[in-house]
């Protein structure tokens, strides 16, 4: 070992200093080794994600004639079609997030109160959709909701409605499909945080005479808020940049941010404008996540490590 050889070295400096040098050299070698292990992964992420995004950002600063200008960004405020896209995107994101809270909170609450084994079985209902292809789930909703789909066929056969209800290829279809896809992203972190609430706090409240409803409202609910917040942020952020479901279920009427980016770049080959859209989307995403982390001191992305 290097420490041994260092202490044996005849030198004017004290053993302690030599030891420290040898240890520092060892630590440096160790660090270099660890960096070598990290570098292939870091390189790929850097080359495939960071470099192209930086490049797109650079492109977004020039107009069609190659002049440095803010025109790619200015059009977001000037052209009604862009404003409409943003409004639609935020509207969908708010409605879907709201629906996820409405459906997800009771489910997470039930899971957290069930005995371990039962909760494990019920969790399958959340985790299986989480890992089922988004395309498969969107296809399923198309089959269920479209004009001649299952729900309309049933309703007409039962005589509830005379005309098929417009459930797919519109705003409602996008919201239903996306709520289904986003729900696990809210339930999983919320469930994890509810699991960590100390039952003794609740029992103490009830012992002191609080009704079950009051215990929930005054003790359980406030303690579950950080988990709820992390679910809400992740769902909202994912909604803003979501592509597959609005593209397939929007019927061309619900144009969301990501679809606009795809159209601008693929259809019109306007890279500057598409890139500018991407830069703003990334900015909003990072700002929301950063705000969340700053407010709550936790990362909203924990959902992927808590399956």
């Amino acid at each position, binding site marked *: 070992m290097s420490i041994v050889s260092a202490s044996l070295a005849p030198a004017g400096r004290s053993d302690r200093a030599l030891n420290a040098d040898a240890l520092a050299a060892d630590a440096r070698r160790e660090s270099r080794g660890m960096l070598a292990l990290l570098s292939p992964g870091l390189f790929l992420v850097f080359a495939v994600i960071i470099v192209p995004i930086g490049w797109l950002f650079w492109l977004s600063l020039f107009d069609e004639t190659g002049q440095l200008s803010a025109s790619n960004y200015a059009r977001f405020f000037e052209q009604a079609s862009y404003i409409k896209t943003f409004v639609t995107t935020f509207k969908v994101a708010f409605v879907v997030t709201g629906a996820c809270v409405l459906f997800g909170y009771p489910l997470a609450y039930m899971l957290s109160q069930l005995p371990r084994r039962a909760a494990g079985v019920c969790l399958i209902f959340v985790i299986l*959709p989480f890992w089922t292809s988004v395309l498969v789930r969107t296809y399923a909703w198309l089959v269920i909701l479209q004009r001649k789909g299952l729900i309309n066929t049933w309703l007409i056969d039962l005589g509830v409605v005379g005309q098929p209800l417009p459930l797919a290829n519109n705003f409602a279809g996008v919201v239903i499909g996306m709520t289904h896809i986003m729900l696990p992203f809210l339930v999983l972190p919320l469930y994890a945080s509810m699991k960590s609430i100390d039952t003794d706090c609740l029992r103490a409240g009830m012992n002191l005479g609080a009704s079950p409803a009051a215990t929930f409202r005054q003790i359980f609910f406030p303690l579950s808020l950080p988990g709820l917040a992390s679910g809400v942020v992740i769902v909202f952020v994912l909604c803003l940049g979501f592509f597959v479901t609005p593209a397939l279920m929007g019927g061309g009427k619900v144009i969301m941010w990501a679809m606009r980016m795809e159209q601008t770049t693929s259809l019109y080959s306007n890279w500057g404008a598409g890139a500018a859209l991407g830069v703003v989307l990334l900015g909003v995403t990072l700002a929301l996540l950063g705000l969340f982390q700053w407010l709550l001191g936790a990362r909203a992305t924990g959902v992927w*490590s808590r399956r």
Partner: protein
Amino acid sequence: MSMENALPISHRQRLWLYALGGLVMLFLIAPSVIIVIMSFSGSTLLQFPPQEWSLRWYESYFGSVEWRDATIVSVKVAMMTAVVATLLGTAAAYAINARTLRLTGAINALLTASLIIPVILIGIGTFFLYARIGLNNTLTGLVIAHTVQALPLVVLTVLSGLRSYDMNQEMVARSLGANRFAAFFQVTVPQIRFSIVSGALFAFITSFDEVVVSLFISGGETTTLTRRMFNALRDQIDPTIAAISTCLIVLSIVLLSAAQLFGRGR
């Protein structure tokens, strides 16, 4: 939760909660169940439950050269992605766990960036980059792009395995004369192999189900299954897709159960 831990609320008082939770669970699982059942329908009409049963949509899937080629492309890409992402991700997780580097926060953020950055931006950026270096419509390009997306999942999974493993065991092996690689592969790997296998399975499924980036960078001979499905869905609703979807659902169940089984051995 054991019984003495339970709150003084009876299951009866909670019936409304179970009913509500059950409805949400139904909402989550019903689409998959409906698709699986409808894939065995004998009719071109969308009926539920189907009036007649057949395997014609599976025959239509397996009999079509286009669907078969796309499936082969997706399987190849997913397998290669699983191998590459597992190697790179395990190495990265090991280095992060060692905590000898500064800037661990920045490294973590960079490695998990693809979970946060909107996928559409990654798709457009990758397409833009690949157009310059000729990687569009190639297997290599797909594997690289999917590896970047699968990497965070492998890192997080392996890291959670390493955190519950006592690294001193590797130190002991080294102090007894094993070199670093021998110590890692003979002492550490056998104990974290379950997380490594789980990570590989997650990487496989991430690649196999990936849609948005593949829409941009795959095409022609390397059209992935998801890209072909997406285009087919834009045109019309072909019941063949119900058969393909069922296969994808079964694949998810198999891989998840495998990951779960391996996870339990941890």
